C-alpha cells in the first residue's frame, strides 16, 4: 500500500479539535501542577516536620505509581466511593497531581541548590523567611529550576495522550476515529506525532527565550 496523506486531509478539523483538547488539558494541568509543585517544594524545605512528611508522602505515591493507574483510580475507582468526576476533570486532576509531584522535587532541589550563605545573609539582615524566599532565595533558585521544569512540562504534554483511556477525545484518540474510516494508520499517527512535536517545540522556544532573559540578569 502506498502512502497517501491526501486521504486523511479532510479529517484535519478532527485532528485540530483533538489537538485543542490536548492543549487545554495540558495547560490546565501544567498550571495546577506548577502551583502544587511550588507548595510541595516549599513544604519539603520547611522547618516544620508535618509539612515535610505530607510532601514526602505525596511525592512518594505520585512518582512511584504509573500515571495511567492514577487516572484509572480517579475516573473508574472513585465512583465506587461515591466520588464521580467527568472525564475532563479526572484527566486534569490526575495529570496535575502527577506533574505536581515531579515539580515538587524540581523546586526542592532548586531551593536547596542556593548557597546556604544566602539565607544566612538574609537572616542576618533581619529578613523574615518569606521575604528571604521572595527576594533572595527564589530569584536564584529559578535559574536552576527552569531547565528541568521545561523538561517536565514536555513530559506532561506527551503524557496527556494517556487520558484518552479515560474516554477523553484528545489528539491521540482522534487517530482511532480517523483510522476507522480511512484505514491509514501510518499517515494518521505520523500526523499526530507532528502535531505533538509542534506543541512541544513551541514550549521549548518559549523556554529558550525565558532562559535568555534570565541570564541577562546574571552578570556574575
Amino acid at each position: 500500500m502506498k502512502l497517501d496523506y491526501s486521504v486523511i486531509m479532510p479529517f484535519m478539523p478532527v485532528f485540530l479539535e483533538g489537538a485543542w483538547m490536548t492543549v487545554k488539558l495540558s495547560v490546565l494541568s501544567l498550571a495546577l501542577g506548577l502551583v502544587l509543585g511550588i507548595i510541595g517544594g516549599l513544604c519539603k524545605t520547611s522547618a516544620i516536620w508535618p509539612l515535610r512528611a505530607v510532601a514526602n508522602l505525596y511525592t512518594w505515591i505520585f512518582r512511584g505509581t504509573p500515571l495511567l493507574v492514577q487516572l484509572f483510580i480517579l475516573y473508574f475507582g472513585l465512583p465506587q466511593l461515591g466520588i464521580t468526576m467527568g472525564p475532563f476533570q479526572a484527566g486534569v486532576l490526575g495529570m496535575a497531581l502527577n506533574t505536581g509531584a515531579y515539580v515538587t522535587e524540581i523546586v526542592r532541589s532548586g531551593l536547596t541548590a542556593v548557597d546556604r550563605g544566602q539565607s544566612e545573609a538574609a537572616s542576618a539582615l533581619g529578613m523574615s523567611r518569606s521575604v528571604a524566599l521572595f527576594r533572595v532565595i527564589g530569584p536564584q533558585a529559578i535559574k536552576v529550576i527552569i531547565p528541568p521544569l521545561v523538561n517536565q512540562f514536555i513530559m506532561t504534554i506527551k503524557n496527556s495522550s494517556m487520558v484518552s483511556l479515560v474516554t477523553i477525545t484528545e489528539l491521540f484518540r482522534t487517530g482511532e476515529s480517523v483510522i476507522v474510516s480511512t484505514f491509514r494508520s501510518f499517515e494518521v499517527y505520523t500526523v499526530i506525532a507532528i502535531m505533538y512535536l509542534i506543541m512541544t517545540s513551541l514550549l521549548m522556544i518559549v523556554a529558550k527565550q525565558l532562559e535568555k532573559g534570565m541570564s541577562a540578569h546574571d552578570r556574575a
Partner: protein
Amino acid sequence: MIELNQVNKSYGKHQVLFDINLTIAKREKVVILGPSGSGKSTVLRCINGLETIQSGDIRYEGASVLGDKAMRKLRLEVGMVFQRFHLFPHRTALENVMEGPIWVKGMKKHEAKELATDLLAKVGLSGKEDSYPGKLSGGQQQRVAIARSLAMQPKAILFDEPTSALDPELVGEVLSVMKEVAAEGMSMVVVTHEIGFAREVADRIVFMDQGKVIETGTPDEILDRPQHVRTQSFLSRILK
C-alpha cells in the same frame, strides 16, 4: 549590650563551645583571636541565632534572645559581615545595600537609594553602584557587604573573619573601612587573625582555644604579656 552566659554548643556529640561567658558593652570593640577550630566563629553565629545553643543564655539589651521576638530585635540592630561576603549575586552593589532598608525596614525606594549611594561612597566604591558582585574584587565585595550591614543603621556589627578570604593585597582596604566604622563609635565583635588590627582597634581581646575562652584582656595584656601558655604559643606561631 550583648551578654553570653555559660553558653554550650554542640553538633551532635561533638561539643564545640564550653561555658562561654562574654559581655560586649555599648561602643566596645572586642576582637576574638584563636587558632582555627577554636569556636570563635561559632560564638558570633550563636549571638545572632545562625546556630542554636544547647544550654546557657544570650541576652541583648537585657532580654534573652532565645525567644523569637528578642532575636528579631537583635537581628534588626546587630549586623553581620561574613568571611565569604554572601552578597546577593543577582543584585547590583547598590541594590545589595538597598535591600535591607526597603524590605526589612520599609524605607521608601528613593530614600534607600540615597542612603545606599552615600554608604558606597563611604566605603570607597563610588562608581561601582551598578556593578554586580561577580564583577567586583573580593575586597570590593567585602566593602559592599559592610555597606549593606551599615544600611540597617545597626548598633553593633559582628565581623566573621572578614579578611580571611581575601588576597593579601586586598586586606588593607577592608581593614581601613573597618577602622573608620570603629572610629565612629560602632560596637564591634571581630573574629580575625589580623593582630595589627586587634592591637590598634580592640578595647579588649578574647583568646579562645578548643571551644573555651582562655583569657581576656586589653591588647597590651594579651599580645605583650599573655598569661596562658596556649595564648603564648598561638601568638608566637602567628607573629613569626
